């Protein structure tokens, strides 16, 4: 009986330790995958939002049609589908960063916008480079970038918008 009692206790303690280790592992990996899932969900939400914004910029003249930085309700940069209008680009550069975020409805994110030629060189409108916002640092982990080909005069250029949290 003495030996039987000892064996029973050791077996039990051993199995409890193994069980607790396995359970801890399960909880640990569960939490990792939950946070990955939430991050992925947020990244997808931002991607969908950026697609909508880029659609809006390159397919719509904005509201009102001849908008400026004071009366703008909806930002659009083209005169017709994918044809950039210089006046609208200038007006867009004059809209403040924070107001632009509010109009795009990406208040909780930062963004960077630019228009470059197909070789990556900056384009100027009325003497200034067409870029808005701060270039994202390399530390930003979840940057989403959308590029669209548009016409600037007769040249094909690239409209690029990036956002991150």
């Amino acid at each position, binding site marked *: 009986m003495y030996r039987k*009692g000892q064996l029973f206790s050791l077996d039990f303690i051993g199995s409890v330790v193994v069980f607790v280790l396995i359970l801890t592992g399960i909880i640990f990996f569960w939490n990792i995958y939950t946070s990955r899932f939430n991050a992925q*969900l947020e990244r997808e*939400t931002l991607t*969908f939002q950026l697609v*909508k914004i880029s659609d809006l910029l390159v397919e719509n003249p904005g*509201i009102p049609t001849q908008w400026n930085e004071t009366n703008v309700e*909806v930002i659009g940069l083209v005169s017709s589908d994918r044809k950039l209008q210089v006046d609208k680009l200038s007006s867009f550069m004059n809209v403040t960063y924070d107001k632009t975020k509010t109009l795009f409805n990406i208040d909780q994110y930062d963004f960077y916008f630019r228009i470059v030629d197909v070789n990556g060189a900056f384009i100027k409108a009325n003497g200034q480079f067409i870029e808005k916002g701060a270039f994202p640092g390399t530390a930003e982990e979840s940057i989403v970038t959308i590029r669209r080909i548009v016409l600037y005069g007769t040249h094909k250029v690239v409209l690029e918008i990036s956002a991150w949290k």
Partner: protein
Amino acid sequence: MKQRGQASMEMLFVIGMLFFIFLFLLGFIFTKSKDIQTSERIVDTKNECVTFSNVIMAVFLSGNGTYLERSLAYNMTFRPSQRLLSVDNDFVTCAVPINQVSDTPLVKGVVAIENKNSMVVMKNV
């Protein structure tokens, strides 16, 4: 008799510990099961929200006179001042970069979405 008594005490201790372990396990499973159900509902409503906000954008960008009908699986409301589409009483919201959308509350079922002079008008049919 003495030895049997000792064995019973040990047994009671083991059963007690097992009881607490399984109680903890039950609580853990219950919590995680609830988390999964909530996540499932979030993904489902989020999917519906994103899809419907894409429909709103498509109708807006397609220009005056665009009309389509679509069925909704949840109640929805668009809040133009916040540029937000709210699904199932704010259970999930998604951002839309335009405010030219009617704020009529929509109940689940078929809705008509129409672009009237760059204003997206939505109503149940």
